[in-house]
């Protein structure tokens, strides 16, 4: 470690502090990553117990599959819509919470409760809640004379978007709220002396300070929305036809049919599609003093 150019004491502590991370990456991440890439280059499937190396053929098969690109298109639209809506609503909700009011502690927990339900269970609960014959929502709507179909072919996509917003706005909220806690009170006080309204001062002060949090939240939420699986799969199975097939469902179907090579290759393509967002996020996190 002494070979580092700068004889800074940081040179040693960085390795010590970074050791757990580096050890974990080496022990747990490198092999699966490498093996996964290896599988992506094999014609491995259940029907083919002795796979051979076929290079980029799987990637080519995925890239040439029009249904893959339809899945990508649906996924991109889904991701952009839910991420932006959730970020905005989550931020507004955090602003609303960012003050004293009775019952705050309990309500904070209640607000993030939806995030605590495993998506696999949440999908089933949505399926029950929205069931036309035994679900609560259609029954209540029909009391008000609204005989609308929640899963009809016109309604299903907006429905899925709404459900995602319902479950994941609290995620954005939690991160924004935690971020706001590090904005010193003094800043707000200074702003209110100037006579600016709460919402205005809140926006003026918190938005710039919370930009890194917003970027990370957008990244985490965006990537997770891009990889959404359980709720959509449980509710629609990707249908009707492939109208709601997202990339995760595409990959899962390949995987559960035993087409491991294709599933791995499709995963690689998805990663490549998303890769350009990484530098954008990481740049935001870079230490301003060092860059």
């Amino acid at each position, binding site marked *: 470690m002494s070979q580092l150019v700068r004889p800074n004491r940081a040179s040693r502590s960085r390795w010590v502090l970074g050791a757990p991370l*580096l050890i974990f990456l080496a022990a747990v991440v490198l092999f699966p990553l490498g093996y996964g890439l290896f599988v992506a280059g094999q014609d491995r499937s259940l029907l083919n117990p002795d796979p051979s190396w076929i290079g980029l053929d799987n990637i080519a098969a995925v890239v040439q599959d029009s249904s893959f690109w339809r899945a990508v298109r649906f996924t991109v639209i889904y991701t952009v819509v839910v991420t932006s809506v959730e970020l905005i609503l989550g931020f507004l909700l955090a602003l*609303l919470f960012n003050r004293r009011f009775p019952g705050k502690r309990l309500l904070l*927990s*209640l607000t993030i*409760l939806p995030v605590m339900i*495993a998506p696999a269970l*949440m999908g089933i609960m949505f399926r029950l809640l929205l069931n036309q014959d035994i679900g609560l929502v259609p029954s209540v709507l029909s009391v008000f004379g609204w005989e609308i179909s929640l899963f009809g072919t016109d309604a299903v996509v907006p429905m899925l978007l709404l459900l995602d917003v319902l479950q994941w706005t609290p995620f954005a909220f939690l991160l924004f709220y935690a*971020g*706001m806690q590090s904005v010193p009170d003094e800043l707000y006080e200074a702003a209110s002396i100037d006579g600016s309204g709460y*919402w205005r001062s809140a926006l003026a002060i918190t938005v710039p300070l919370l930009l890194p949090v917003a970027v990370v939240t957008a990244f985490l939420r965006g990537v997770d929305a891009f990889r959404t699986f359980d709720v959509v799969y449980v509710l629609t199975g990707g249908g009707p036809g492939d109208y709601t097939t997202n990339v995760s469902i595409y990959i899962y179907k390949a995987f559960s049919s035993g087409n491991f090579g294709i599933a791995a290759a499709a995963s690689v393509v998805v990663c490549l599609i998303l890769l350009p967002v990484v530098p954008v996020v990481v740049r935001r996190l870079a230490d301003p003093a060092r860059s």
Partner: protein
Amino acid sequence: MALETISDGRGTTVTPPRTPVVPRRRRRAWGVTAAVSAIAAVLNLPLFFALLTSFKSDADIARSALRVPDTLTLEHYANAMGQAGYDFPRYFLNSTLISIGTVVTILVICVPGAYAMGRLGLGRGHLLKGIAALRLIPVIFFAVPFFLLFSRTGLYDTIPGMVTANTFISLPLGTLLVMSAIREVPHEIEEAAKLDGCSDYRIVARIVLPLLAPTLAAVAVLVFITAWSDYLFAVILTSSEATPVTVGAANFVTSTGIRWGDISATTVLSVLPPLVFALFAQRYLVRGLSAGAIKG
């Protein structure tokens, strides 16, 4: 009235009362409570219906949702606790151990690691990019490789194995969030500490850590929840010893339909541990800690 609303730094969107009986500020605060309660109610509609369903008999579940049930039953809770022949107490214990283990491991890895990357130049940004990129790969990509790795190392179907797998899943989230919080820590504090002769380790433990408390609480909650919610890895990497609740609950989705009552009861029970954890973590989610630490 309108002018006063503006002049108050903590005004809300609630219309000010015409005749202020209680002090305006308190009334406003109750207005916020009402608004937040309404939002929380909408967000928790699925859970609320799960709660209702969990107490209904199968016969009542099979009929209209608005029909007043003939009877209430605890049968579904009995099933969700193991009566149905599935070892739910164990699944709950497994999920709890896996989630807590993952939170601890993530904090142990990410806090020093993020400081080393954010302040001490570890990896020069490339390492962070690599970790962030891990998040982009669909989890299923790793299913077969992890199965292979775990089968060979004896981690298959064990709690440490599931902790490892979930740490892997949450590593990008933990690292990025801690990085974003470290970025917010003013350099002056650390510089001052260094001048006082503090080591980097001491700075992390004594100065940075307290400043990060709200973010670490949020990270802990999210990591706990993520590990608690994991399903796909658990299906592939466990078979009986380390089975978590999510996989156990899947037993109620059968080839002849979904056991709505049982799975509703399981859902209700399964939010309790993360909820308790969140309530516990919440006390670190308060403002002032950071300001206090800066002054001190």
